[in-house]
């Protein structure tokens, strides 16, 4: 538990500090960062009104927002007692956690179905990979785009041990030590998933204006 607390605390702190540093480096002022966030929210809202993106696009946006919100709730209920109190999740927090978890599972499945095709790795990504092999720097937009794809698939991949450790723990298959190991694996998977998701959201918010457009163009073609 102590090791996990240290690792989790450090990882989250490093990620948040990294983001803060990046925002400061790129936008110089917090006001500019606020403006960017405001712009992104407005863009999301406009997208939500139907506009260009169409109905499926609205569903995509909604599912992404719902999944992010649910993940946030799960992270709070899951990490708060562990990080702050050093105890396992229990009581009302556990009730909230286990009630939200299956809804998150459904939302994540929907997210996977809705975004899998758009964020699939394709020929262009292969070329970028080949270019990296030849020490050829891909453009910033391409890099962000591929980072978004990697983030998306990493999140899906990490959600598998996250769910599997819960499923196995719910059946009388493992003893005291096995259950403890499953809980530990669940915690580490959740930590990695949360970091990946936070990174993905940051990319979408801070970098993705052009990359999203590019992705949408590709999708429309």
């Amino acid at each position, binding site marked *: 538990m102590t090791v996990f607390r240290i690792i989790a605390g450090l990882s989250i702190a490093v990620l948040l500090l990294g983001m803060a540093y990046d925002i400061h480096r790129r936008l110089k002022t917090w006001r500019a960062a606020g403006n960017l966030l405001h712009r992104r929210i407005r863009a999301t809202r406009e997208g939500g009104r139907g506009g260009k993106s169409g109905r499926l696009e609205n569903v995509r946006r909604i599912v992404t927002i719902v999944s992010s919100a649910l993940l946030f709730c799960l992270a709070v209920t899951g990490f708060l007692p562990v990080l702050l109190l050093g105890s396992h999740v229990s*009581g009302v927090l556990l009730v909230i956690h286990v009630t939200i978890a*299956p809804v998150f*599972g459904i939302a994540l499945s929907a997210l996977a179905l809705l975004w*899998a095709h758009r964020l699939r790795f394709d020929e262009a990504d292969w070329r970028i990979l080949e270019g990296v092999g030849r020490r050829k720097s891909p453009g910033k937009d391409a890099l962000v785009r591929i980072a978004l794809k990697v983030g998306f698939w990493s999140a899906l991949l990490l959600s598998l041990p996250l*769910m599997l450790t819960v*499923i196995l723990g*719910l059946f009388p298959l493992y*003893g*005291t030590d096995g259950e403890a190991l499953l809980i530990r694996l669940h915690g580490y998977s959740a930590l990695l998933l949360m970091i990946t998701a936070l990174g993905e959201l940051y990319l979408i918010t801070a970098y993705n204006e052009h990359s999203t457009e590019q992705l949408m163009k590709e999708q429309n073609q």
Partner: protein
Amino acid sequence: MKMKRIILIFLFCAFARGETLAQTREDVGDTPDGNRSVPVHLLKLYDEFDHVIRPDDRPLMPFSPKQTCRKCHDYEKIRHGWHFNAADSGARGGRRGEPWILVDPGAATQIPLSYRNWTGTYRPTDLGLSTLDFLKTFGRHLPGGGVGEKDGALKDYMRWQVSGTLEVNCQSCHNADAGQSQAEFGMQVLRQNFRWAAAASSGFATVRGSAGEMPDNYDTYTAVPPEASNLLPPTVSYNTSRMDAAGRVLFNVPRRMPPTQCAFCHSSRVIDPTRPERWEGEEDVHIASGMLCVDCHRNGIDHQMIRGYEGEAELRGQPHVASFTCRGCHLGSSDEPVPLEGRRGAPRPEHLGLPPVHFEKLACTACHSGPWPGGTTYTVKTSRGHALGIPKTDKADDALPQIATPVFAKQADGTFAPHDLLWPAFWGYGRKGYIAPLGPDRIRPLVTLILSRDTTRRIGRWPVLRESEILDVLQQLRERDTTAGDPLYVSGGMMYAIGPAGTLTRLKSDAAEPYGWPIAHDVRPKAQSLGIRGCTDCHATDAPFHFGMVKIASPYVVGSDSLSRMTDYQDVSVVSAWLFSKSFLFRPALKVLIILSFLLIASVVLIQALGGLAHIIRKLASEEE
């Protein structure tokens, strides 16, 4: 001058030699040489003045365990052991344990007492009980020693001369002879035959008469009988067939005492109306499997018994003591340099599917000990509380005191454990936040009138008190002593006082809180542990663990308050416990949803991975072409 020096040196040597001999003599039985055979205890008997007892002595004195046993054992060290040190000023009380319960239905009183500093108990002196009074009431279930040897009070000086001191009765625990009778010891203590009690219990001596009936000026040693001819002074006679030619008696002192020896003072009987017969009950699974109490509750010559609760090792400053707890023996600890678990073949539990949070929140006993919980708590009778084992004790199921079990309450270390629970009921005066309880002797005359009105009352049971009657007694108490403070009555978890308008007022008070002590036995077999049928053994909206009802047993309980919910003792809100339990109704559906989500996401990832693999294969093939 030279002669004087020689004499001094001689005296010094003589004293030094005497001291060495004395030490060696006392250590002989306490320092093992490694031989595992059991030493034969063929012993001469000594009286309290260290004189060898011969059957033809006149007056014939009872043998003294102190003088007899100290020939080989360090009595001074032993007498500060756990069973004897309650009143020692420096003794650690440790975790709360079963108190002595002073019950007097005639005074509507039921109050937990202890010489240890356990929160919620009162010292006997708080109720005006002298050491002698305490022994006369509770000495029946003491192994002697402790307060039995604290005969310094001037008030009872003459009585102590008649009764003698109640020395540690080593045989209470160590004599496995079939004739050894703790019940007889108890009876002799009740007769104030403290000096004679050990001999009477031994099985080879007969004690007649009662020191309690003798006048204060009775002289035991001249044995002149008192003037009243119907009173029999205490006398002892020995079964000489048990003595050899040298006057020695064989004591059966095995190394590992059978559980029945401990059971006299440590029995409990759960009153389960559905299983009234003894054969329908079970004994502790450890005992059933052939273990003995002393296998876990060990001690050295200092007689500091291992009580076996979590945290005891830290309290005692002896880390290895932790290996004698349930957890230490069955699960072990990674802190130990060598593995210590698995003593006596203790199996390592699998706890299949049990989330680890249970090990943080629950004591092992929560799932494994005490009776299987029902919708409402049971009543339990205990050896010390109900004088079990003493002839003519009240064998009725509803005999007082009324103790509820099992109550799943939160312990000081934050874990839940099953407890026995007692509701204090007593009269007293409150002053500056402190309540001074009144002894039954001071109250009984006031309650007598009430008792006489209740024609349906059964002797030995609670009187049914009415509000007006409590008020009446409280007013009488106020009139008796206007300077003592506010007269109060504590009962059923509430405190009652005379309100400003002269009516009875109900108040909350710590003094009215029930006194609970954790129970560890009887341990049920694995197949009867809570959770064996699944999570809903505890996590159902009607599961006794959170939603069981606790009986509030006291002379005066307002009807609506006669039951309380288990969550009241758990620091848990009933709503959150209910919500948590309710969530288990949907758990199967939640499991299905998570499994479906897992399969769907795994399929999407797999398809993408296969697509990627196909792309790599195509690329490699195209390069080849």
